[in-house]
């Protein structure tokens, strides 16, 4: 059974059909990329999975759960983490605090035990910090650990956001344009990180990305979209040479 399954999903914003009868599934352990021209509906697919929007039709299941029955906060509880195209960090908190929020879904303490900071809460905090420190090491974030997000350079924020998503210990990681706005070196780093996330951590990755170098470098399968619908699905090479994809890109740039 696939890890994530979208079937015939349609979403309309007024008269605009942002996602049009889209079906695809992501298998456990793969890196699956979604590509397509601006406005194709890629981020909207992520927002549907995050349950920010209700689809007009279709079904979305994850790991045996019907996501459409869950609240937005419940999606993370099943093990889906994500980043945002425009970076949505907690600006007035430190990098460490941002990553610690990622541990929220593993919270076992409650209001009363936290107010008294009982030994159980202390133990949980130590575990959370242990987990987060490993991510900080993995992503080379040590220099920024205690810095406020407001004031950090763009490239670092992008990495912090990936770190925060990893801190949730997800089964599926959604990355919305992880390399956009990054320098060539930063993009290379991101590429190795995505590789390690899949290979070492065993996390399935679904990403939206415009950088075709990165896409063909890390992904097993690629879905090309235009106007909310599927254009082509296959290996990076198959999709890049697909006539409909070439036309969509040339059409979009012309």
């Amino acid at each position, binding site marked *: 059974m696939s890890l994530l399954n979208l079937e015939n999903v349609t979403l309309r914003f007024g008269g605009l059909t942002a996602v049009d009868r889209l079906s695809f599934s992501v298998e456990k352990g793969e890196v699956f990329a979604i590509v397509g021209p601006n406005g194709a509906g890629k981020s909207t697919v992520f927002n549907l999975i995050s349950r*920010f929007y209700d689809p007009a039709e279709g079904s979305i299941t994850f790991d045996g759960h019907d996501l459409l029955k869950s609240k937005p906060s419940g999606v*993370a509880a099943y093990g889906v983490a994500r980043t945002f195209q425009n970076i949505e960090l907690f600006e007035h*908190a430190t990098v460490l605090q941002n990553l610690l*929020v990622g541990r929220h879904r593993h919270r076992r303490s409650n*209001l009363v035990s*936290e107010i008294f900071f009982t030994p159980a809460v202390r133990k949980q905090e130590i575990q959370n*910090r242990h987990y987060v420190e490993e991510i900080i090491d993995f992503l080379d974030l040590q220099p920024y650990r205690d810095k406020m997000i407001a004031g950090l350079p763009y490239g670092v924020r992008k990495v912090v956001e990936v770190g925060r998503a990893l801190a949730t210990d997800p089964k599926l990681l959604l990355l919305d344009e992880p390399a956009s706005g990054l320098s060539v070196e930063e993009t290379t780093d991101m590429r190795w990180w995505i590789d390690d996330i899949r290979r070492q951590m065993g996390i399935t990755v679904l990403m939206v990305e415009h950088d075709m170098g990165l896409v063909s470098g890390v992904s097993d399968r690629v879905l090309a979209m235009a106007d909310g619908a599927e254009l082509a699905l296959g290996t990076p090479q198959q999709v890049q040479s697909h006539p409909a994809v070439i036309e969509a890109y040339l059409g979009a740039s012309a």
Partner: protein
Amino acid sequence: MRIIFKTDYMQDIRPWKDGYQLSLYLILLALAVAAPFLLDAFYLGELNNVLIWAIAGMGLMILTGHTGQASLGHAAFLALGCYSNIILMESGVPFMLAFPIAGIITGLVGVLIAIPALRLHGVYLAIATLALSILADDIIVLTAEWTGGVGGKYAPPVNVFGYNIDRWGTPDAFYWLTLGVAVIVTLGYINLLRAPLGRSFIAVRDSEVSAQAMGVDVARTKAISFGLSCMVTGWAGALMGLFAGAFNNETFSIIISIELLMMIVIGGLGSIHGAFLGAMVIGFLPQFLSLSKEWIGALTGTTISLPGMEFGVFGMILIAFILFEPMGMYGRWLKIRTYFELFPFYRKDMFKRQKSYLKTERLR
């Protein structure tokens, strides 16, 4: 310049950075405990008032400073805490029980109000809570049977383990009672901030969408924050009532709500320090103004009387802070401290926020 090497997770979990910082706070606490021996009755009363405002400030700080929800209705919760404490005491509940229960009642009412109110955002929430402040006045008058309405009520004597505590008779004991409540609330607040719930408050404040994506239930988190905020505000209200001795429907007016909000903005949103610093401003400003009036009067040989001057000056301080130091007094203090800690390596743009991208309302 101090450099701290971190070798153990507890160093980040502990509320103090190092032994030096801990000893500073312990000295401050010792001074606070010794205040009745150091100050005369008048200044002790002023300090007591500041502490009560600081507790109220912490109450609002939880909601506004840490969860990002502005409220212009917190005077209503001061009133609720005050009246429930007094009514409980009058019906024979001992103070040591009536006081905590008054806060809990206020907190529960807060949660009930929060569930519909917190669906509103920003200025709409502020307007809704403003209505609450106005409503509270009417409700107190309508329920005159219990609240005494316009005629008001007198605070009954407080008895703690057989010992009588009274603002006028035993000001020292009343001060220590307030200090005790302030310390307990502060400790609980510190604990919350280093635990998952406190971080989820901050998450909701800074980005509701990504808080959700991290598994934080935004509506629930806001309701809990509102409840805690109201509980602490209720305790502050109960103390205010006992401190004032007499109160009626006009004691907890909308002006108090506004002052409370201004106070935490001036003190510094998003820090416990801010509640205390703001309370000092609000507590000592009237004193300072009347002293300056005397000085100016003595210098120029005239008498100045400007009705509403206090509030006006307060407003101007607020505007100055919003324009020049949005992080409040605590933010300014952090900068001064960093300057000395890094001396002579401080750079002028050290705290400058980088505007590195444009954020739109739309999710992309």
